[in-house]
């Protein structure tokens, strides 16, 4: 008989203790789900930026012996500089801890500080950033992603001048992943379904149309290198037009956040006696050769050299290596078949060039 469901009956007997237990279990489940979702998104999320942050800090945590070069910076370097090539070429060891451009240089500084604390200074620190990252301010929500307790200290808030809103954002990103990452969670669930129901070719076509999906599933290496192999030529051209508009209307600028972080890194270099190299990530050749872009970049290099003029330990490379569209995913992210060339070129620049003043 299906004509039921007209009434409600059950109102269980309970006690204060039992009710409290229900509430505790409820809270515990919520916390467990929150944590589980956070971990899942850190590994499998469609927001690759967050995946990179989690992975790179994990690489640093897992590191059990010192390396010669510590490669820091943004995702262009993360995907561009392959430590295995450095080892093959020079016998030196490196890890690539590049994360996101929106961190500016702060993530570089924090990772470097932790590295020095655990292993002492490396021989060299390489900072790989795309030219337009230097003007960005530190994004508070990203700080919440860093899996270290110090990000919540009052001292940190004071050091980086976090206001109430930034601290709130930071806390949400740190502890309330279910809330802060709900857009990512939806997209990741959708992506999981698409992966389950579509073959690689169909999936590539879906990803091509949906910009919220990762261009491909990255291969995260234990040395921090991020291997991505599919070129996306049509994106590169559109992206280049955006960059041209940017360099045409903007003057080179280094944000206060990045200036301070760069000087702090330089100071660490002086105190601990290691060299620091600032180098641009790979770039779309057709953008690189454009005069407005060259003008912007030259201006930026001049500014960077002015900032570090008192630190001979810091070398600012004024060259950029260009790539064709079929070796890129956007103007500054190369595919895996181009990483060897970029890494070799970067090594040559770093080791070959004199410290530039």
């Amino acid at each position, binding site marked *: 008989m299906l004509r039921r469901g*007209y009434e409600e009956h059950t*109102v269980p007997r309970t006690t204060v203790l039992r009710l409290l237990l229900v509430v505790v279990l409820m809270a515990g489940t919520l916390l467990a789900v929150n944590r589980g979702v956070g971990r899942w998104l850190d590994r499998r999320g469609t927001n690759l930026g967050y995946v990179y942050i989690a992975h790179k800090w994990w690489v640093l945590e897992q590191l059990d012996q010192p390396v010669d070069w510590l490669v820091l910076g943004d995702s262009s370097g993360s995907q561009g500089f392959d430590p295995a090539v450095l080892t093959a070429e020079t016998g030196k060891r490196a890890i690539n801890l590049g994360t996101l451009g929106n961190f500016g240089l702060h993530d570089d500084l924090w990772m470097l500080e932790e590295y020095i604390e655990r292993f002492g200074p490396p021989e060299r620190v390489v900072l790989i950033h795309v030219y337009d990252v230097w003007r960005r301010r530190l994004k508070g929500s990203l700080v919440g992603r860093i899996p270290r307790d110090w990000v919540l200290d009052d001292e940190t808030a004071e050091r980086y001048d976090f206001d109430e809103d930034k601290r709130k954002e930071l806390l949400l990103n740190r502890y309330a992943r279910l809330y802060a990452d709900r857009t990512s969670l939806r997209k990741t669930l959708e992506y999981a379904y698409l992966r389950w129901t579509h073959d690689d070719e169909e999936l590539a076509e879906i990803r091509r149309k949906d910009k919220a999906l990762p261009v491909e599933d990255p291969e995260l290496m234990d040395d921090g290198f991020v291997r991505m192999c599919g070129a996306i030529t049509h994106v590169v051209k559109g992206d280049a037009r955006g960059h041209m508009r940017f360099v045409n209307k903007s003057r080179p600028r280094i944000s206060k956040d990045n200036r301070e972080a760069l000087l702090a890194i330089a100071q660490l270099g002086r105190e601990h006696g290691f060299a620091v190299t600032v180098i641009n990530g790979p770039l779309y050749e057709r953008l690189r050769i454009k005069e407005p872009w060259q003008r912007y970049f030259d201006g930026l290099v001049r500014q960077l050299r002015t900032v570090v003029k008192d630190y001979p330990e810091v070398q600012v490379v004024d060259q950029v290596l260009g790539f064709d569209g079929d070796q890129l995913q956007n103007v500054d992210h190369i595919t895996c078949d181009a990483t060897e060339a970029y890494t070799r070129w970067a090594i040559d620049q770093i080791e070959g060039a004199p410290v530039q003043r």
Partner: protein
Amino acid sequence: MLFNTWVFAAFFAITFAAYLATSRWLSLQNIVLLVASYVFYGWWDWHFLGLIALSTAIDYVAGLRIADAEDPRTAKRWVTLSCISNLGILAAFKYFDFFLGSLGELLTSMGWEAAMPSLSLVLPVGISFYTFQSMSYSIDVYRGDTEVARNPLHFAVYVAFFPQLVAGPIERSSRFLPQVSQPRTVTLPGLESGLFLVLWGLFKKVVVADNAALLANAVFDDPSAHTGAQLWLGALAFTAQIYGDFSGYSDIARGLARAMGFELMVNFKLPYFAVSPSDFWLRWHVSLSSWLRDYLYIPLGGNRGGRGGTYRNLMLTMALGGLWHGAAWNFVLWGIYHGVILVVYRLAAHRPGPKLPDRVWWADLLRMGLMFPLTVFGWVLFRIASMADLQAFLAGAFTPSEVELGVDAVTLAALWAPVFLMQLAQLAWDDLLVALRLPLVLRGVLYGLLIAACVAFATGESIEFIYFQF
């Protein structure tokens, strides 16, 4: 102030604390409830507090005059005054512009240019709910179905009780006034079942309804741009949305009330398991359908005037019931549609010949299998924005198209699955609170999962409850 906001959570926490603190003094506790209810309502627009106070004052005085009248004609005059006042408020705020606008369009279509006056009033939230609730009190006092409320505070709380003020359930004075006038007890079982109702209601609203709304809106915003399969998917999405939205609100209202020791009526009883239109109306928005039955259908003559009279009364009741939902012709059309299927089912029941056996599971399944699509089609009429859109929907919906199990379909299935599973359990155990039969540990886990889902799958912006506009 929406239930699914942090502002309301803070508001309820403060109100509940004050409510508990005043539990020894009934009048003080009722003052807390009244103040909270007026704050809750005034949060939208404090100007409309005057309207609710006016409706309360009219029916309070009318109730006293009716009860104290020695001459039945005096009582009749007062009940008439109550009805005219309440319907007048509704007419002015909700229907005036609609009817005159429609008249203007009709005259224009006949070649007469007519500039119709317009009041352009903002529709006060929940006006249809509290005017009906307030008016039914006067009628009940007149009929002798309820005790008169001599304490104005009690009556004011009855009209304005915040959990059900803006979207029901439309309570009857005979049920609710005694709860206001007598001390309530906050019990532990009441707290837990209230907690479950609130969480389940929030889940249905925040997760099911708001997400289904994204799918439904995409289709109904431009029906002509979609294939038949997509149109039906949109219709199913709206079917899920309106149930999740409205039953979710009712559950939250009942849960909040129950936590405070009040018992509101069950407003939804698994409506999509209905086996016939009349069964549907015993399960969907029960407080309105029973209101329409008691204060419209039966006074019109009910089924006492032979088959013809019964069918006429059904059609009138359903058309007016449709109009209650909103000042637009699609609601009237939806009401008429339900009137028609009620009549058709009655005609079919009276025809000679073989019939499906009654109260046998497979026959009921067949009946549900017919009633559910009829319900879904009704929701198309309810949701459609214009007659042109309806034409586009009908043209597209019955044109064969490729059915693809895309992300939208899977999303809708995933949204509906938890509700469906819960409803199957409710049906199997014949108990709408079946979840409370789970062992303590599983209940705690279930509540945690419901909150997690509400946090994770909130659509970002707080979507207003559909029934607020009615």
